[in-house]
């Protein structure tokens, strides 16, 4: 188990290295240079002096390998550069926006689990009934509906037509907890429905597959009650593929969270990323991408860890 984890960890570090090179290169593959590109989008920067100043700040006058080394080193000590647009240190921007994104993520997990798991289990036990068909088709619709459209429809229904929730904006929990919850319900729900559809399908199929296994019959033959058969014998193996999907899904949901923060004007990490991309604000873009990559790698490691816990066969391999 320890060796397995060490291997996974080393591999993650290798991938992190490759990703960082990729991210680092993007800004430098431009015709011209990133400062010029940023100046095209931001008139405040369109001044040779300011641009030269930014160039040396961004380290463009140094050799590429050195630039990379300094960038990586700086990243790990929290020196993420300053935004071209606001001149603010990127690390501070990130810290200020993190709580919003974390709250969004927590809400997303809540909805996706709350909807996906029970429906998947119900669907499996009522397989090939009308209820199963209804749940399964709802799930595929949930997976297909694009976040931006779902957001617009919900905003129209519940903010314009029925005026229950605010259409956009963010109120911190510390300021007004009631309003905070109200403004987070729609964004988290939009994010959650997509994943809920995925989880539902996987829980259903995985449970059905496990319930058809010989060892479930053995458990029944031993005289275990149906509930014990499911909890003791079926739940753990059925979770194995579901865990994989959750891991992949948490990577996908980053895209969704960027969009949701944009649509609902939540001042989170994703909104920062989209604004930075639109303004070609390279220090912010680089930091955003690297954090995203780190997050996904960590989720993958967590999945590996859970795998080891759920499936003893993995531990030995």
């Amino acid at each position, binding site marked *: 188990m320890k060796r397995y984890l060490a291997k996974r960890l080393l591999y993650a570090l290798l991938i992190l290295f490759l990703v960082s090179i990729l991210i680092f290169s993007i800004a430098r593959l431009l015709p011209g240079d990133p400062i010029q590109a940023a100046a095209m989008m931001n008139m405040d920067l369109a001044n040779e002096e300011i641009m030269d100043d930014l160039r040396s700040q961004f380290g463009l006058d140094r050799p590429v390998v050195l630039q990379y080394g300094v960038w990586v080193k700086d990243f790990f000590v929290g020196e993420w550069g300053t935004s071209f647009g606001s001149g603010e240190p990127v690390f501070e921007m990130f810290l200020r926006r993190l709580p919003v994104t974390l709250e969004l993520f927590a809400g997303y997990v809540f909805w996706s689990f709350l909807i996906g798991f029970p429906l998947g289990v119900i669907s499996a036990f009522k397989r090939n009934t009308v209820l199963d068909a209804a749940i399964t088709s709802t799930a595929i619709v949930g997976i297909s509906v694009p976040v931006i459209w779902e957001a617009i429809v919900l905003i129209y229904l519940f903010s314009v037509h029925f005026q229950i929730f605010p259409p956009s904006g963010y109120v911190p929990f510390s300021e007004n907890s009631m309003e905070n919850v109200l403004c987070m319900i729609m964004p988290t729900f939009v994010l959650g429905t997509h994943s809920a559809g995925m989880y539902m399908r996987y829980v259903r199929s995985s449970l059905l597959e496990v319930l058809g296994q010989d060892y479930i*019959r*053995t458990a029944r033959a031993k005289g*275990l009650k149906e509930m014990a058969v499911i909890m003791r*014998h079926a739940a753990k193996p059925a979770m194995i593929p579901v865990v994989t999907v959750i891991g992949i899904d948490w990577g996908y949901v980053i895209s969704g969270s960027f969009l949701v923060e944009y649509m609902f004007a939540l001042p989170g990490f994703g909104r920062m990323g989209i604004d930075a991309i639109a303004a070609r604000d390279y220090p912010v873009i680089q930091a955003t991408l690297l954090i995203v990559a780190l997050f996904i790698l960590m989720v993958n490691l967590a999945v590996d860890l859970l795998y080891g816990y759920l499936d*003893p066969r993995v531990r030995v391999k």
Partner: protein
Amino acid sequence: MAKLLSVNNLSVHFSTGNGVVKAVDQISYELNTGETLGIVGESGCGKSVSALSLLRLIPNPPGKIVDGEILFEGRDLLKASKEEICDIRGNKIAMIFQEPMTSLNPVLTIGQQVAEPFMVHQQMKKKQAAAEAVKALKKVHIPDSGKRLADYPHQFSGGMRQRAMIAMGLTCAPKIIIADEPTTALDVTIQAQLLTLMKQLTIDTGAALIIITHNLGIIARYADRVNVMYAGKIVEKASAADLYKYPKHPYAIGLMASVPKLDQDVKTRLQPIEGQPPDLADLPEGCAFHPRCRYKIEQCRVSAPSLRTISDDHEIACWVDV
């Protein structure tokens, strides 16, 4: 001998894409205390289904027990409540499955799985059940059983997994043990070891044993009485010795001719049974065996024969006296 189990007119049907399959069709048999009953037949003849239905383990859908009664200790198991049947499973009637690789849960330790029946049926606490599990594994000759309790099935060899299955089946000293192709996946020497062990253990506990197999050698060596099944029906019931020496049903005769015997002239050729096992969804009219039968008469095409007694403790379902 006391009657322990009697199965009357049991029918199990499966609904498939090609219509209803009568996997088990109106079978009746009895089992006495302490005896070993062999159920023999080709794969797909309904022998496993008939065994699984004793404990109502047929997956539903698609399978369904449509008719019959299974009397055990004076109770009809088919009418028992879910709680009652759970109480019998693994406690009074235990099953040992084929394919120990897939029949053991890969994510639970051997110890957890062997200890389970103790906890379910004898209300033991975890520790006590684990101690019992060690003893149970020792009984089936698993070396170092204390240490191996924490192993997972994939860490066991095929033979050891099967031993663990047997240990699991015997935990609660059941009245009946049903062994479904218990040794198919193993090599011959280990097969013999395990069957002898199983037989010995049933003798020790006085349990009755039902062995389901397609291997006539196993039947000859371990069974007292035999049911020969074909296409969901019992076509011949006899004592093992009788069946071996004087098979009466054309199918049983065919079976016997298709396996080598030690007392046979070496020059005798083995006779295979012509034709293919029937498609259960599309059985021929009359006797299901008649397209492959060498002795068929006109009657066989028209109606299916039911079992008739031909001598003491020997019944066949055939229109012809061969």
